[in-house]
């Protein structure tokens, strides 16, 4: 890298909520949490996002950082499977991975992306594709971790604005207040991914929120819903 700030603009492109990779149709579990009465206002949203940040978010961020650092994406994909107990969430992660792959190959094409798309045409886990996309865009493992963590909280926040009519300023303020925790989680995820380069993928975090998994299974069975997950 040319310097500490190299790639910053590419990071903005990749982290932009309008990056066309299918995320807009997913609520990160927020639709089920709203229905169950667990998210009713901005305070609940903050707690929900905090929980997701330190569980599914941290796990995804470490996988993304490891992929950005050059670990074998197929091995990471298996590690992601092992860390995703809910079949519904595994299907969602692969679907979003496939959709991100399309956008990634249009924006930062490269042989590693092509190789993964060829090996897993139905989609690799989204965090793995995200990390490889960051790598293809000459971003760092830490950048990839940031993207994964930001997605983990921004998805539910955006969805809650639509589902509850929550004040969009309040929802965005929730994200801003989580920023220091997100910084800290990004550092942890990046450090763990660096260790995995030497010690193997088993040292990657496997934090999970059982309620997120159970709720995702329930949501997948709804006949009528606004969001795909």
């Amino acid at each position, binding site marked *: 890298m040319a310097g500490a700030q190299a790639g910053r603009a590419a990071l903005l492109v990749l982290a932009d909520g309008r990056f066309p990779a*299918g995320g*807009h149709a997913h609520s990160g579990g927020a639709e089920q949490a709203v229905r169950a009465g667990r998210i009713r206002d901005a305070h609940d949203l903050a707690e929900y996002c905090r929980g997701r940040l330190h569980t599914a978010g941290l796990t995804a961020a470490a996988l993304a950082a490891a992929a950005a650092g050059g670990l074998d994406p197929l091995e990471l994909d298996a590690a992601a499977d092992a860390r995703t107990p809910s079949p519904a969430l595994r299907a969602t992660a692969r679907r979003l991975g496939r*959709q991100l792959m*399309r956008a990634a190959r*249009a924006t930062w*094409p490269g042989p590693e992306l092509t190789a993964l798309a060829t090996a897993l045409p139905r989609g690799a886990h989204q965090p793995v594709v995200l990390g490889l996309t960051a790598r293809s865009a000459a971003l760092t493992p830490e950048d990839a971790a940031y993207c994964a963590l930001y997605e983990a909280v921004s998805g539910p926040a955006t969805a809650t604005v639509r589902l509850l009519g929550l004040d969009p300023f309040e929802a965005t303020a929730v994200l801003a207040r989580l920023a220091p925790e997100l910084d800290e989680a990004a550092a942890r995820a990046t450090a763990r991914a660096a260790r995995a380069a030497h010690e193997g993928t088993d040292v990657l975090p496997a934090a999970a929120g059982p309620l997120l998994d159970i709720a995702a299974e329930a949501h997948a069975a709804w006949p009528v*819903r606004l969001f795909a997950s």
Partner: protein
Amino acid sequence: MHLDHSHEGPAAVGADALRPDGRRRALRVGLGGPVGSGKTATVAALCRTLRERHSLAVVTNDIYTREDAEFLLREAVLPPERIQAVETGACPHTAIRDDISANLEAVEDLEDAVGPLDLILVESGGDNLTATFSRGLVDAQIFVIDVAGGDDIPRKGGPGVTTADLLVINKTDLAPYVGSDLGRMARDAKEQRGELPVLFTSLKGQDGVAPVADWVRARLAAWTA
């Protein structure tokens, strides 16, 4: 040597006319328009009219249910494996314009599963007058409005009415009951659209979809020429 540009350049971009195996992909026609204007009924009628001669599939973009897909299944206009529903996260226009990932995936899955296909109809969720399809998703788009929605809709314009490759003004049989002036709608549409075509339909009538089917056939002929 098999030339495959996808290994280096941008790959799998939606508008490419050829599939990875080198075959020409299906023509993709989008149908958009306000809620209740008759998009699903038009899709059903087109399927019944075109299915004898052409290999068809449909992608629906319901806003929050699978109702449109289930209507098409119930009416048995196509076998179930030729109909796919896409979920749109409360934003039907995003799924057909700003982030077409899920729709492109559905289109590709249909070609893989039941192809080769001649035509894929992509029906948007009922939306407002500004909803249009991305050129990365469809090759041509039909905007469907109806006379009962108000005969001032052509005059109001908006990207759908103004720029769609075909404007269909449906439910002409209702015009006398809702006081809509078809002549005024035709004049306003002409003013907004210039030379772009406008068709009036009444799907209740015998073969009411025929003019739209003819237009689609012409697009198909041009696509495969």
